[in-house]
C-alpha cells in the first residue's frame, strides 16, 4: 500500500505539488472503495445466494432459482428491495444511536480487511501488528451491536444486544488465546510473516504443527464462529426467540448493513483461519520462486487463487455447520467457552512453549506433524464413510448437479 502510493506519486509528477497526506488519503479511499465494490460487496451478496442454495439442498429443497440464471441475481433483487424500503426509526428509539449503530458494526467488520492477505504481496497494509489489529478493531462490532440493541428501545433488541455482548466478549478470550501459539511459533504478529512461517504442504501448516496448535485450530475456528454470531452461536439474533435480535427494529438500508457485515464476516473468519492455521497463500511454487525469478508474478496469482480457494471452502464448511447444528442455549454457550475453550487454550499456550523447547532438543518431534496430518485427514474420511453408509442404507442416489 505505502509502496504503491510511493510508486504512483513518483510516476505522476503533478501529484507531488499536492501535500502527501491528501494524496495518501485519496489513494486509501480509492482502494477502500475498490475493496468494497469488487470484493466485499460481491462476496457478501453472492454468499447470501450460495448459502440459501446450500441450505435448500441440505433440506431437500431447491432454494432461490428464479431471479436470473439459477437465481444467481437473487442477492441484487434483495438488495434493491431493501434500498427502496422505508428507513424506519421507532418513535421511542434513541435516534442518534439508532442511526449510527449499523455503520459502527459495518466499520468494525470492514476495517479488518486492511490486514486480510490475498496473496504474497497482495495485502492492503502489511501491518507488523496484523493479527492484534484484527482482534482490536473487530471488537468495535460489539459496540455497534449493543448500541443497536439498546437504542431500539425494544426488549427483543435489547436482549439480543446483551446476549451478543456477553457472547463476543467471552469468546474473544479463547480466540485470542488460540492465536497465541501461532504467534509463539512465528515470532511475529504480521499476517504475511505468519503465512511465510508455514509451508505449502498440509503437514507444514500450523494446524498440524503440534498437538496444541491442532486443538488451537478448532478452538479458534469455533470461537470465530461465535464472534461472528454464526449458528450454532446465533443466540444474539435467535429468530425463534428474539424475532431478529438486535436488528429487529431496523429496516431498509440499515438492515442491509447488518446483514452485509454478517456475510462479509464469513469471509473474514475463513481468511483468518486460513492465514493462521491452514498455510495461507503458500503453494509448492513459492518454494522455488528464488530459482525462477521471472515467474514470480504468476506464482503470486497462483497463491491468491489457493488462498481464496481455501477460504471459500471454509466458508462452505461454515454454511454447512449452520444448517446442521441447532442453536446452543445461553448457558451452554457460556459452558463451552469458559469450561472447555478457556482452559484448553491456556494449556495450549503452555504446551506450545514446552513443545518449542523440546523440539529444539529433540528434532524427532518434528515427525509428529505427519501423524497429526493423518489424524486430520481422518475427519473428512470418517464423514465420507458415514455418508456412503447412509446412502447405502437409504438406497438413495447421488445427484451432484447443483443446477436444477
Amino acid at each position, binding site marked *: 500500500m505505502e509502496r504503491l502510493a510511493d510508486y504512483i506519486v513518483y510516476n505522476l509528477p503533478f501529484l507531488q505539488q499536492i501535500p502527501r497526506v491528501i494524496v495518501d488519503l485519496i489513494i486509501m479511499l480509492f482502494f477502500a472503495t475498490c475493496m468494497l465494490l469488487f470484493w466485499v460487496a460481491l462476496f457478501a451478496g453472492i454468499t447470501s445466494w450460495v448459502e440459501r442454495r446450500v441450505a*435448500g439442498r441440505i433440506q431437500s429443497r431447491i432454494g432461490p432459482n428464479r431471479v436470473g440464471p439459477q437465481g444467481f441475481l437473487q442477492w441484487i433483487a434483495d438488495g434493491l428491495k431493501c434500498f427502496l424500503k422505508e428507513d424506519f426509526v421507532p418513535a421511542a428509539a434513541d435516534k442518534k444511536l439508532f442511526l449510527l449503530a449499523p455503520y459502527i458494526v459495518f466499520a468494525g467488520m470492514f476495517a479488518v480487511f486492511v490486514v486480510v492477505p490475498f496473496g504474497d504481496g497482495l495485502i492492503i497494509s502489511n501491518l507488523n501488528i496484523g493479527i492484534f489489529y484484527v482482534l482490536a478493531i473487530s471488537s468495535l462490532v460489539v459496540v455497534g451491536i449493543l448500541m443497536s440493541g439498546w437504542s431500539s428501545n425494544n426488549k427483543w433488541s435489547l436482549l439480543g444486544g446483551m446476549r451478543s455482548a456477553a457472547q463476543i466478549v467471552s469468546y474473544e478470550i479463547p480466540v485470542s488465546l488460540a492465536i497465541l501459539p501461532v504467534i509463539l511459533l512465528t515470532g511475529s504478529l504480521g499476517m504475511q510473516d505468519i503465512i511465510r512461517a508455514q509451508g505449502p504442504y498440509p503437514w507444514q501448516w500450523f494446524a498440524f504443527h503440534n498437538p496444541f496448535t491442532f486443538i488451537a485450530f478448532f478452538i479458534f475456528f469455533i470461537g470465530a464462529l461465535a464472534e461472528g454470531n454464526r449458528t450454532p452461536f446465533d443466540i444474539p439474533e435467535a429468530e425463534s426467540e428474539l424475532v431478529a435480535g438486535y436488528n429487529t427494529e431496523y429496516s431498509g438500508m440499515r438492515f442491509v448493513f447488518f446483514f452485509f457485515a454478517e456475510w462479509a464476516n464469513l469471509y473474514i473468519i475463513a481468511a483468518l483461519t486460513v492465514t493462521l492455521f491452514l498455510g495461507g497463500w503458500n503453494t509448492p511454487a513459492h518454494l522455488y520462486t528464488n530459482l525462477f525469478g521471472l515467474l514470480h508474478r504468476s506464482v503470486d496469482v497462483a497463491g491468491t487463487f489457493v488462498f481464496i480457494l481455501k477460504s471459500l471452502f471454509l466458508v462452505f464448511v461454515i454454511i*454447512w455447520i449452520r444448517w446442521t447444528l441447532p442453536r446452543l442455549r445461553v448457558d451452554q454457550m457460556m459452558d463451552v467457552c469458559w469450561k472447555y475453550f478457556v482452559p484448553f487454550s491456556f494449556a495450549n499456550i503452555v504446551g506450545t512453549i514446552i513443545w518449542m523447547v523440546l523440539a529444539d532438543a529433540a528434532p524427532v518431534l518434528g515427525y509428529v506433524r505427519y501423524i497429526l496430518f493423518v489424524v486430520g485427514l481422518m475427519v473428512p474420511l470418517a464423514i465420507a464413510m458415514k455418508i456412503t453408509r447412509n446412502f447405502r442404507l437409504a438406497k438413495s442416489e447421488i445427484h451432484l448437479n447443483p443446477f436444477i
Partner: protein
Amino acid sequence: MATTASTDAVPGFRGTYFGRIKNAIISIMEGMSVTLGYLLQRPITIQYPDRTPKPVKDTLPERYRGILELDMKTCTACLACERACPIGCIKIEVVKDKETKKRYITRFDIDIAKCMYCGLCVDPCPGGAIRHTNEFEGSTSDVQYLVRRFVPPGERIEPAKPKKKEKEEAGAEGS
C-alpha cells in the same frame, strides 16, 4: 451417586468432562455427514406450476373431481342437480314462454367458491350434462369471478329434449 443422577437428568450434561468432548465431536460429525448426504441428493421439490415435467393437470387421475362444467347442449333443465346440491351452489332459473309454451333456461350459475366437490350433482344428471373436469386452478382476483355463468345474462337458452334411452344409460353409468 445422587449427583450423577441429577446431572443425568439434564439432557446434554451426561458423562465425564472428556466424555462430553468426545460426544460432541462424534455427534457433530454424525450430524454433518447426514446433512452433507442430503446436499448430495436430489431435492424433492416439484416446481409447480411452470417447471414440472408435464402439466400437473395431465397427471391427475381420471375421475378427479375438479371444477364443475356444464354442457348446455345436453342439459334438460330438470333441476336435479340443483336439488341434489347440499349447499345450494347451483342456481337455475327456468321461465316458460306463455305464447309458445316452451321452457327456457335464463340462468345457470355454479358458484365454485361454495362448491365442495362432493359430486352429488353429477350422479342424478340424466344426460351427463354436468360433470367434473380436471381443472383445479381457480384463483381469481375476486370471489365473484368464481361464479361460473353458463347462460350469459339476458339471454335464454332452450333446454335439450329429454330422451328415455339416454336417461337409462346415464342412470346406469352414474355411480
